[in-house]
């Protein structure tokens, strides 16, 4: 009788723990979707602003072409080439706006300051969105790596999330 009671209690506790952990995983997955969507939105915005800068006539033709090409590739890249293409856009922007002195000279043109400010903000947001996304991925992976979670398949059939590995450092010339 006593043994039965103990077994029942243990089972109940285990059940509560498992359902609670499953809840944690669900919550993390929902956050993961939101973080991924936020990152996509910021990347899209950066491409749009970069294209606008490239076609605004404020840059010399060579730099314009460089930025426009990288932005265009980032926009049209397939999913598996995406990270590379976005990294290339980061590198192209870093090359186009290397330091504050060069940017100050550009800012003297009418309307350029606002546009460059917007581009700088978009780059910074990409960097942050990538980090927030990868933070969530790290949390999810560590929870899903636990033995209990694997044995009881608490994560269901959801794919193990991957961090987004791309160069996202904002260009030195566009920092506030």
């Amino acid at each position, binding site marked *: 009788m006593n043994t039965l009671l103990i077994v029942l209690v243990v089972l109940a506790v285990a059940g509560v723990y498992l359902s*609670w952990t499953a809840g944690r995983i669900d919550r993390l997955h929902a*956050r993961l979707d939101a973080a991924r969507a*936020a990152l996509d939105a910021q990347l899209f915005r950066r491409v749009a602003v970069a294209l606008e800068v490239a076609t605004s006539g404020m840059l010399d033709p060579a730099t314009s072409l460089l930025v426009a090409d990288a932005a265009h590739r980032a926009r049209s890249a397939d999913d598996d080439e995406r990270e590379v293409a976005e990294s290339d856009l980061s590198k192209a922007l870093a090359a186009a706006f290397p330091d504050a002195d060069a940017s100050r000279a550009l800012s003297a043109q009418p309307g350029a300051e606002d546009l460059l400010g917007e581009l700088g903000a978009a780059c*910074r*947001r990409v960097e*942050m969105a990538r*980090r927030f996304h990868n*933070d969530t991925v790290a*949390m999810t992976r560590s*929870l899903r790596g636990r033995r209990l979670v694997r044995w009881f398949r608490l994560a269901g059939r959801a794919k193990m999330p991957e961090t987004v590995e791309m160069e996202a450092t904002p260009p030195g010339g566009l920092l506030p």
Partner: protein
Amino acid sequence: MKVGVVCPYSLDVPGGVQNHVRDLAEVLLEAGHSVSVLAPADDDTPVPPYVVPAGRAVPVPYNGSVARLAFGPLSAARVRRWIREGGFDVLHIHEPATPSLSLLALWAATGPIVATFHTAMPRSRVMTAASSILRPALEKISARIAVSEPARATLVQHLGGEPVVIPNGLFVDRFARARARPEWQGEGGTICFLGRLDEPRKGLAVLLRAFPTIWRARPGVRLLVAGFGDVDEARAQLPPECQDAVTFLGMVDDEGKADMFASSEIYVAPQTGGESFGIVLVEAMAAGAPVLASDLDAFRLVADGGRLGRLFGVGDSAALADGAIALLGDADQRAELRDAARLAVRRYDWSSVAKEIVAVYEMVAEGLTGVGEAKVEGGAFGNGWSG
């Protein structure tokens, strides 16, 4: 935006986190956002209109010192009510691993949550505990911010991931407006120090050991010491002949602090450890005082490796004296440091720091319906564990 900010420490006690929370709230309000700050306070303590008191803070030993924290069922109930009735678009929790309102709020809330970590501690016992016990709560954070590189490193070491760094802010113009007070200045130059007199890690002893050497090399030099503590005990550390060259200012208000920097040829930061950011260095730079600081990670970053301020070995009084004597005798070098620093501190101004923080709010709140109350599961034990 409607922002709920949680501060774990009483706002009437001075401190880095409290200052940050108060300044941030005021900047956000000025920018047209709606802000409510939840902080420990008695119901009859006068607080700014945007602060919601969450009950009295109790002094308890925590993490090696005595902290004033708010916890227990009464605080927990108030936190829940504040979240339920606030209707916030985003919740910004400071020091979420502190066993005070921050942790209670993290448990009780669901939705877009931003957290700022202020502390830098290698091998922190608190953070090690946090990584296992607090993990379920910390998982709820959508965006993690560290105020400095050392704070970020601490966070990565204990919890992993990739937090972003958004530095502490200050009102640069308030410091730039500071005026030198002639009665504080010495004819052989003026050096200043700020910090508690009796807290060893603030490093006053390091500076007092170096001072006789400086005094002999630069007759007429004056040392200003601002901060709370036992003045007689501090003065006794000096040889009798140079005691008159030291002025103890006691606690100074913000204006006095800025004026002290503006009156000085050098601000010395001899701290020996435990610094996460070094906001005082930035304040001194904004007020136009060339900085001579110990070579801690946090200080080296703020001083950009020596370009914006000179560095000396941690705890090395002889090197401090050499550095101070060199700087006092070289007006060109001081002017160079002052100009470079004045330009560099703009990025710490609240106008740019707050913009970054609002960008984070917008990013985490996008597409979500705002902050709600986590449902309670499993009675008292599971208080807020589910989301």
